[in-house]
């Protein structure tokens, strides 16, 4: 037993050193996560925990958009459909049937997938900008349904009196943080799998993929379902955290603001949108100190950052701190002179990205 523990410790230590410490961006991410994990021990201000909880929820939502828009190339302007349907379903199941949070959120996510399928089946037959424009209508249609059945959905007022996500704010925070970490890792595993490669290929050249004998419609639908499922989980969590669900969950801003988060953080990366949300959402909150200039400052910063870092802030930082080995294509810290995997000399190829950028 002791030997096994010693082996496990050695392996974990080796992996930690080889896969995390050796890459600056991963070190930054792990440090940030540890900081978030320890935060309530040093500061349990409910406002700060509230903002970070919402940031975690929106991170899941933004990453789910990235899976569909960034990887599969299906740019959706109506992602709020999944978010809103799941939020309403979770709220209704909780309020009318008294189901607990652990049941309402998964069912809400499934309802989001189902509504996505109903609207997505005809929608996904469209391509490029036509799909994007059609997707704009998805949440609008759902909003029409919400207003058609006000006895059920609460109409303009929405549904209130929903059970909390967890009993205390600290618990809500930890739950959201762990959910965010788990779901983002799952999404990352999906996009780095064979399925993710096909999503990539569909985005780059759908005709070629189809010529290779792959049913692209099936894979596009799969991306739609997976993305909807994760967006739905975020929607359900949002409903229980806010304790009010109304038409605002289906509004255009809910669909568009996550696209800003994704592009700002780095599209087609999964972790980029998380970085984007973790920078922009708290920044918007911080700018409350100047409410008159809040949107102006926010807009200016986004435009300026994207002017210099068109591929998003996470991709920019990664390129700055890490270089790719020309032989094995593995990433290495900018400080290394030889590849950490195959030992290829990096000096003549990547040589200190940080300096190269300034040269």
């Amino acid at each position, binding site marked *: 037993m002791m030997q096994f523990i010693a082996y496990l410790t050695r392996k974990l230590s080796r992996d930690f050193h080889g896969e995390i410490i050796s890459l600056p961006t991963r070190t930054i991410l792990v440090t940030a996560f540890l900081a978030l994990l320890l935060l309530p021990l040093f500061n349990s*201000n*409910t*406002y700060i925990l*509230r*903002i970070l909880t*919402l940031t975690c929820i929106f991170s899941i939502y933004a990453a789910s958009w990235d899976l569909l828009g960034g990887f599969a190339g299906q740019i959706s302007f109506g992602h709020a459909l999944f978010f809103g349907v799941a939020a309403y379903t979770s709220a209704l199941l909780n309020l009318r049937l008294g189901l607990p949070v652990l049941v309402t959120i998964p069912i809400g996510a499934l309802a989001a997938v189902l509504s996505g399928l109903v609207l997505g089946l005809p929608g996904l037959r469209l391509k490029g900008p036509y799909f994007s424009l059609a997707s704009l209508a998805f949440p609008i249609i759902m909003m029409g349904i919400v*207003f058609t059945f*006000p006895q059920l959905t609460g*109409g*303009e*007022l*929405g549904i*209130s*009196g929903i059970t909390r996500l967890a009993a205390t704010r600290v618990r809500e925070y930890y739950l959201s943080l762990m959910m965010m970490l788990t779901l983002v890792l799952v999404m990352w595993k999906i996009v780095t799998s064979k399925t993710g490669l096909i999503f990539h290929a569909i985005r780059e050249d759908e005709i070629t993929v189809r010529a290779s004998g792959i049913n692209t419609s099936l894979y596009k639908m799969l991306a739609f379902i997976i993305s909807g499922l994760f967006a739905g989980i975020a929607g359900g969590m*949002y409903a229980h955290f*806010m*304790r*009010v669900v*109304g*038409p*605002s969950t289906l509004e255009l*801003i809910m669909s568009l603001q996550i696209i800003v988060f994704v592009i700002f953080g780095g599209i087609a990366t999964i972790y980029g949108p998380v970085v984007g949300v973790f920078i922009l959402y708290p920044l918007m*909150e*911080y*700018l*409350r*100190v*100047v*409410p*008159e*200039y*809040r949107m102006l*400052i926010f807009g*200016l*910063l986004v435009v*300026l*950052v994207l*002017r*210099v*870092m068109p591929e998003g802030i996470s991709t920019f930082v990664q390129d700055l701190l890490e270089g790719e080995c020309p032989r094995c294509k593995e990433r290495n810290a900018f400080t290394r002179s030889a590849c950490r995997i195959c030992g290829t000399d990096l000096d003549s190829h990547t040589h200190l990205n940080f300096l190269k*950028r*300034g*040269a």
Partner: protein
Amino acid sequence: MKSKRGVLTVFVVFAVLLSIALSGCGGKKADPGPQVSPIRIGIAGPMTFIHGEHMWKSATMAANEINAAGGVQVGSEKRPIELVSVETNEILNVPDAASAIERAISVDKVDFLLGGFRTEAVLGMQDVAADHETIFIITGSGHPQLTMRVGEDYEKYKYFFRTNPMNSSNMARATFLILHEVATVIREDLGFMQPKVAILAESAVWVDPIIAASEQQMPAMGLEIVGVWRPSANATDLSAELSAISASGAHIIFTVMSGPVGGPFARQYEELQVPAAVAGINVDSMGGKFWQTTGGLGNFVSTLNLVGRVETSPHAIDFFDRFMDIYGEIPVYTVATYDALNILVGAIERAGTTENDAVIAELEKTDVPAIGGRVVFTDEHDVTWGPGYVTGLGTQWQDGELKVFWPNGWEGIKYEGTVRYELAPWVVEFWK
């Protein structure tokens, strides 16, 4: 090199913008007065919209008056009031509103909250305030559910009171009473004993129950409905609807509008000289800069209102005039925040403490004259509506002034300063 310069530019701009942000840290605050542990009161509303602006302006007037008189008598000490502006952004972004309330309570450390405008957002704000056990007086949202929650779960929601507006069910009642008043003028001046009514209601969900109620109520009131027109809430041209209404032979246009369509309606009503009197709800015409934005073409347009220059209480006209003098705008209904602050201060002084239960007990005993009428809370902490309490007002634009024409003898109530509803000259000329 180019990229390095770019990064540098971003960081410099970022630093400059943050410096600007930090220079305004803490947001808008009223003159705090002497630095003796002030009572911090958050005014929560959409501050870039007129409703939030008027909440802040009227609260500032009340706070300045209280501080000038030495502050709030809490037991043996006088404490000044310090207002904190809480920008909820609730019209544009609902989650923003609840976060703003959380920030106000846990970062800005406000002791009490006043305000709230968009019901969906206020419901979220209520939950946050309830979690923190913070007294919250609503001064801008009229949905009955906000105070029904107090009745359903008193222990959790006892911190909520509404001084203004009267709830939307009572608003609907007042609107039909105003319509009855206008119909009476038509009967008396034009001799039509069963006036014809055209319903011009914006295309919005909240309007639907009012139309359904109108179809039930109006025949019982001796009125004949000639048609229902539903323009967009954002329509800028109503010439088609108004031409159709003219052709329908309607004597009264019953408006139900809360969106920007209210302005174009008022302009075109006069431009096209539509031969019908106006009654109903037109939020745009309730005050503010309505007369300027319509270019003086809003004459004879009327609406249900909650504030007017009449003696609804001994200080109502004085407040109205002072507000106009200071800000140069006709107050809109959220200026009732002025009274809410005074009601709260009165309760604190009577309780001799800022402790919740004592203040709530005193607030429940409130019986004071306010801008909209006498404020007494129901068991659900809602403002009481009816004769002798808050009634609502019927206001009409007459030569650039917002005049009150209702109540005009209803249940024996006629406030000092009330005038008769006036028919536009082109209406009289057309039907005589």
